[in-house]
């Protein structure tokens, strides 16, 4: 089982950051790697079990299922149903935690998955440094960068 963990500090209050990332169909509005997204079967994007079908800017198409969403604990958990990445049993969680010392937010993005052993290092790097950190960098830009 491969594991990815990336975390950062966003210079905005957790409710504002959550409002930006909560929409399971909203990746194109905040993540620079995502071109378009739709929820299958016309379901609401906060219906647990709904499926998002989205396309990356490089053309790859991915289908993901919403497994858990909490407006109280500020997390979103999902699995990959279909992708060209060559991963199995992929489950990821995006979690926000308020930093009470200043109006900032601690953001954590984790994933666990199975893959061919020779591809693990490359996948961990592309998911962690590319997808997750790329999303955090976009949030940092949107909320005014990282403050210490």
């Amino acid at each position, binding site marked *: 089982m491969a594991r990815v963990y990336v975390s950062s500090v966003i210079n905005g209050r957790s409710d504002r950051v959550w409002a930006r990332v909560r929409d399971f169909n909203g990746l194109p509005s905040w993540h620079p790697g995502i071109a378009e997204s739709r929820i299958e079967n016309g379901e609401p994007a906060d219906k647990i079990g709904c499926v998002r079908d989205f396309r990356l800017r490089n053309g790859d198409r991915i289908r993901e299922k919403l497994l858990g969403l909490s407006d109280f604990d500020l997390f979103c958990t999902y699995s990959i149903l279909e992708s060209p990445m060559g991963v199995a049993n992929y489950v990821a969680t995006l979690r926000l935690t308020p*930093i009470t010392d200043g109006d900032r937010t601690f953001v954590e993005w984790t994933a666990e998955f199975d893959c061919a052993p020779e591809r693990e290092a490359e996948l961990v790097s592309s998911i962690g440094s590319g997808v997750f950190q790329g999303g955090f960098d976009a949030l940092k830009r949107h909320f005014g960068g990282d403050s210490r």
Partner: protein
Amino acid sequence: MIRIVRSTVIDAPNDRVWAVLRDFNGHDRWHPAVATSAIERGQSADQLGCVRRFFLRDGSELRERLLTLSDLEQTFSYCLLDTPIPLFNYVAHVRLAPVTDGDRTFWEWRCSFSTRKGEEAEMTRMVGEDIYEAGFAAVRARLAASAGLEGRA
């Protein structure tokens, strides 16, 4: 039931912060409110269930029991057993997490307790500011000072 959460970011790798916080008997070396501390019955400070008996600078004597400790998650929990301060059913949780974007540490300190009617505001202020925020500041200063020493060495 009163709930308090305080969290901050320390500008040091999480392993260095954990090395300070992990010692359940070490708070008299870093927390400004704690004068002396000892683990009862000669137990090790990482023995689950061990009790630390400590004195605050104002002379108050407290006893707290270690409920959980995880080097993997960098978390621990403890509860108050005896205190002259009106904190009842006080259970606290400490969690560290690496900020991989910058090699810093997220530190969260939370608790729940009840108190005597009329003392809610003062107990909330005391725990949040005098214990948690003062603890953050002390560890931040301690790690900054030791980083400075390393820099000069």
